[in-house]
């Protein structure tokens, strides 16, 4: 039996606006074990909001409500902001979509990684330096000493994203939330970054929440997939069975992809049923 790392029950994210309250996430429940959990959906489906809500990164006026978000038995919803800071980065880390916006442009990469590391541990500068170089090597960066001295603009997108992953993994978190970590990257680099993440998840027994809009990628890479639509989970399935998914929304998304092996004159266009957005969220708790 797989142990449960994270248990999210009935999560809501709301944004009050002039035209009433907008519900970005509506009653989402899922558990995460030592596995790769994919969350897919279109933009605006609430997948990124779900990831951010777990770390309580949603700012006012946004409101996060949940029956519980428990990490190894501690309910994150009940923690003070100070205790929460000890969770972020240390126990749950997050890799954002675009490395260009997540790295500080006026600090060398080495200084940033060392800073992140020393914030969470009492290591000396020399230890932190050695650890940073080691982590950069772990994400297959050649010549890590040079990269430590470099500034973010000198890095390509793929390298930037690997640096972010390295930075997030140094404190050895239990859970990594990756929000579209490879969308800004080329296919060839994408595979590289994924295999690095895969290896780290396996070696360290981490739980991974992988947020993406790319169905094929998720089907290949994850163990279990949640499909979100309009803030709800419409379907949960094993990643290898994604192509036999039943929900018309999932089917519609799959059919709208052009395929090299099956040429067609016209692509199927997704027909949205208003029923989907009112239906109750499917629970993905194990």
């Amino acid at each position: 039996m797989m142990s449960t790392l994270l248990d999210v029950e009935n999560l809501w994210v709301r944004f009050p606006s002039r035209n009433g309250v907008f519900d970005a996430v509506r009653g989402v429940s899922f558990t995460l074990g030592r596995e790769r959990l994919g969350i897919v959906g279109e933009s605006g489906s609430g997948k990124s909001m779900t990831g951010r809500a777990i770390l309580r990164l949603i700012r006012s006026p946004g409101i996060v409500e949940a029956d519980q978000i428990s990490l190894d038995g501690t309910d994150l919803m009940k923690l003070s902001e100070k205790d929460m800071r000890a969770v972020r980065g240390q126990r749950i880390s997050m890799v954002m979509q675009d490395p260009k916006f997540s790295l500080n442009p006026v600090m060398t990469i080495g200084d940033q990684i060392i800073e992140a590391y020393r914030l969470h541990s009492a290591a000396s500068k020399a230890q932190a330096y050695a650890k940073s170089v080691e982590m950069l090597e772990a994400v297959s960066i050649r010549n890590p000493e040079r990269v430590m001295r470099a500034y973010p603009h000198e890095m390509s997108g793929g390298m930037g994203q690997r640096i972010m992953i390295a930075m997030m993994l140094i404190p050895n978190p239990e859970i990594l939330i990756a929000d579209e970590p490879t969308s800004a990257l080329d296919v060839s680099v994408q595979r590289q970054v994924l295999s690095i993440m895969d290896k780290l998840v396996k070696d360290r027994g981490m739980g991974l929440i992988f947020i993406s809009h790319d169905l094929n990628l998720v089907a290949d890479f994850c163990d279990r997939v949640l499909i979100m639509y309009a803030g709800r989970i419409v379907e949960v399935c094993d990643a290898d069975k994604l192509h036999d998914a039943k929900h018309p929304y999932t089917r519609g998304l799959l059919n709208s992809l052009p395929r090299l092996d099956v040429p067609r004159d016209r692509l199927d266009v997704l027909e949205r049923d208003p029923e989907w957005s009112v239906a109750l969220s499917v629970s993905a708790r194990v």
Partner: protein
Amino acid sequence: MNKLSVNGLNVWFGKQRDRVNAVKGATFDVAQGESFGLVGESGSGKSTILRAITGLAPNWSGKVELDGRAIGKVRPKSFFKTVQMVFQDPYASLHPRHSVDQVLGETLHLHGFRDIDARVVKLLDDVGLGQKFRFRYPHQLSGGQRQRVAIARALAPEPELLLLDEPTSALDVSVQAEILNLLADLRRDRDLTYVMVSHDLSVVGHMCDRLAVMKDGHIVEILDVDALRSMKASHPYSKQLLEASLG
């Protein structure tokens, strides 16, 4: 006859020690009514080729012919009536404080049309948006709707050659399908010629008849889509790219 013919195109940025050769000796032909794809990873120079053709990358050498006539450094107005471009990011390519009506009206005015009102109505219908979008601003539109506006703007001068720079890479797959269908319909109805840049081989496989694979500024291989589908790429890099995109 060739609609567009590119021969030994070099494009560079910067000078002397900082000079970067972005495109090196690119050569390809696009026939009238054909849809031609350019694929490669970021930085391979595929977008730069489009930018050089339209004059957005000023430093280039080589020969570019449109309908058999060479293009010089200064492009006549008739050039922009024939060739139009659709950009990658619909969030950045529309003026945030111009309504759809202003965007299309201004383009039509610049190209010397008189019946602007009727044409704006027609253009919006052609790209499947309808009249209720006419007086909206970009922030009131979704990504797919914005890309439709960008396509309508490109169609305004009634061009014959459309240069598409990753027209769907910023969009969701469901919206991508709508835009690709729209582009396919427009090409059929108006007998357009496309040059489409994409990093997604399956999109190019769906849209194009032939494609060129680029790496580090060089075109390493030109192949037709049937060869692509049957995995008959001959250059090792195209093979690698094909494998990576099939997973």
